[in-house]
């Protein structure tokens, strides 16, 4: 850790924006931040539009160079903001990852280490915190899954806008239409700032293509008409590096390459459906006049196997499952058209960043860091690793060059050189030449684990 102001594993900011402003210019210089953000402290804080989707790969966007999907709306959001390429889920499962996004804490701390659990009692969520500390109007529409799939009307911290309760294909258009109406009907510049969470289900529907392969991915598909459209299989489709037993795979029951390719074809169409609903929100933001004072963040809870390592769905420690899109755009100095490939960011950073823009402290023990300096292009010492969880006892530590994976006491671990082997096809853990690197990553993990305030009931 190279940040002199931050000694905790993962690089949590000790000094919040409010505290930073109180400490004066000495702290300003020490933090290496410019004065550009200072004026914002006395202005009305911006609105927030938080667009969350479910099970989207980092690279499932045409803006990321993927030739198999067309996402004009996500692309235009990326063009007007900063896209983080080293963006990691805290745990590649819905509820755990969401618990981090909405608290800034790791799943072992929120108590949500598996699906369908509530956030630990007494731990404020994003809506509660922004509402109580900064007077935000907070509204939520769409999938929640903490623990209920869709939020009940009395969900703490949010006014819940009804939004269906089914799958993405059926209900995402409802979510986008409701959020569009919220934006268009809300007067610009009047009243409290708002936090609107538009939480889409897509492209999560792809789970059912694995569950019902006989009827959704049959062998007698009309390939002749689709053959030119079917994506190629990923280069690591047949790669099965040695790993902890829990890494697993084999959930898919496809028997032909064409079934796999059709599965991918459908997945990318679901991403395009999502893109269309995002477009509706961006149009509403533009045309309603809210755009000039609204910070937009787009991310996902986790990725999707997408045939990589022969996997479908999530849960895996591989990048297809762990890495998620994270795009920030908005007023007040957020750079445009920037793709940040250098900084390791995590779902826990969302809370800290929004608190920074709202000029309030983060909740106690929030683990994330504000991305604001990165968004605005100001120099800042940054963390040198991120940690993620997987499958209850699994841990991942990702540094700039390497990725280390373990699960509980399983003696088999994984080490990948992410520069030479971005598709994670060669496990270096048995190579004696990497023993020092493994030890260093184990030490980072041990430090991290010892800093966690594990919720006793997490199980």
């Amino acid at each position, binding site marked *: 850790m190279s940040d002199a102001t931050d000694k905790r594993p993962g690089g949590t900011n000790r000094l919040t924006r409010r505290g930073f402003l109180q400490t004066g210019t000495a702290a300003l210089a020490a933090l290496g931040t410019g004065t550009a953000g200072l004026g914002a402290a006395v202005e009305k804080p911006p609105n927030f539009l938080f667009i969350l989707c479910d099970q989207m790969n980092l690279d499932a966007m045409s803006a990321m160079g993927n030739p198999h999907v067309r996402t004009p709306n996500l692309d235009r959001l990326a063009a007007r903001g900063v896209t983080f390429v080293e963006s990691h889920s805290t745990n590649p499962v819905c509820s755990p990852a969401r618990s981090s996004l909405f608290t800034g804490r790791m799943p072992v701390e929120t108590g949500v280490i598996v699906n369908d659990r509530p956030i630990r009692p007494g731990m404020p969520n994003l809506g509660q915190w922004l509402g109580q500390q900064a007077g935000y109007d907070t509204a939520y529409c769409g999938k929640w899954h903490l623990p209920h799939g869709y939020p009940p009307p009395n969900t703490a911290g949010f006014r819940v806008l009804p939004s269906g309760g089914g799958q993405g294909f059926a209900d995402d258009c409802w979510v986008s239409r409701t959020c569009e109406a919220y934006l268009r009907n809300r007067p610009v510049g009047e009243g409290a700032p708002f936090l609107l969470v538009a939480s889409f289900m897509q492209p999560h529907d792809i789970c059912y293509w694995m569950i019902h392969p006989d009827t959704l991915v049959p062998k007698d598909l009309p390939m002749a008409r689709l053959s030119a459209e079917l994506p190629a299989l990923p280069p690591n489709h047949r790669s099965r590096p040695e790993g902890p037993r829990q890494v697993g795979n084999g959930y898919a029951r496809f028997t032909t390459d064409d079934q796999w390719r059709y599965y991918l074809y459908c997945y990318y169409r679901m991403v395009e459906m999502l893109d*269309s609903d995002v477009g509706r929100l961006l149009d509403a933001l533009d045309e309603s006049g809210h755009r000039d004072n609204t910070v937009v963040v787009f991310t996902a809870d986790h990725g999707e196997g997408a045939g990589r390592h022969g996997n479908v769905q999530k849960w895996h420690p591989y990048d297809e499952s762990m890495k998620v899109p994270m795009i920030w755009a908005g007023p007040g100095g957020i750079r445009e058209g920037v793709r940040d490939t250098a900084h390791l960011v995590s779902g826990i950073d969302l809370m800290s960043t929004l608190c920074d823009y709202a000029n309030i402290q983060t909740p106690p023990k929030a683990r994330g860091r504000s991305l604001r300096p990165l968004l605005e292009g100001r120099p800042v010492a940054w963390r040198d690793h991120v940690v993620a969880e997987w499958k209850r006892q699994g841990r991942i530590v990702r540094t700039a060059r390497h990725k280390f994976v373990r699960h509980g006491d399983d003696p088999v671990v994984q080490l990948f050189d992410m520069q030479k082997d971005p598709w994670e096809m060669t496990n270096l853990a048995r190579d004696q030449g990497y023993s020092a690197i493994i030890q260093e990553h184990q030490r980072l993990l041990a430090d991290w684990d010892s800093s966690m305030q594990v919720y006793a009931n997490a199980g």
Partner: protein
Amino acid sequence: MPQPSGQVTDHFSLAHFERALDKFSPPTGPFDATGAWRNTYELFMCIGGATRVGSLSIERAILGGGLVGLGVRYEKRAAGGSLVCRADLTCADDVLCTPLSWELESVVLDAAGKPIEDTRLAESASVKGPMIEVSGSGGARRTPLPLPFTLHWSLFDAVQRLGRQDTAETRFTLVDRLNNQVKPGQTLAFRKETCVDLGGTRVWEEERVPLEVGAVFRPVETREGATPTTLWAYEQFGQGILPIVYWVDQQGRLLFVLSGLIGYVLTPEAAGDDRP
């Protein structure tokens, strides 16, 4: 030529929606796809079972001067409330039932059926050349689009009038769900003619399978009182949509629209009766 009568699982889309189609009885009587009609569909979500989650009603009227009107009523239901949409479209009486203008209003109702006012949207749209102009709640916009184009709901009309002899593709741009989001690269084509058993009662019988020594009996599903029905399938592929299969009967009446997890199934109500 029609194939011999077969199970409803003849095509993968029918197989996935088998439970939604379980009690479906094909409508009888004449139907003129080029005239005035009203079709009402139940909206099913199939993820194992078949759950009714909404409805769609489309009423076609002849306006004269080469124009038709489509009145659309859509409702999506859930435990916490429902989304209701009402749209009135004026379309060209052409292959794609190309929309020329429309009015759309939607609102979310709470669990008690009361409108939530800040979820209400009303907009008017007109097509001028390769451009949609939309005005209404919260501003106006102009969106260019590659021609030809149509809307999802217009296709419920268009497929009833498409040819059944060849598999030539109709290419177009889709404006999805009246949200002004443009999805180019769509193709729609006739794919197959088939005959399936619809309606009746599901019955399980045992089929004797002789072995080298003795025999075993295995359950076989059949339908009693089913109606062998000839169907035509049209398939739509394109950007931003899962493959959609439209199933049309011999009268040209659209019975099912099946795509991914969502299926529209024609209800007995109205059932495509001719309207004056």
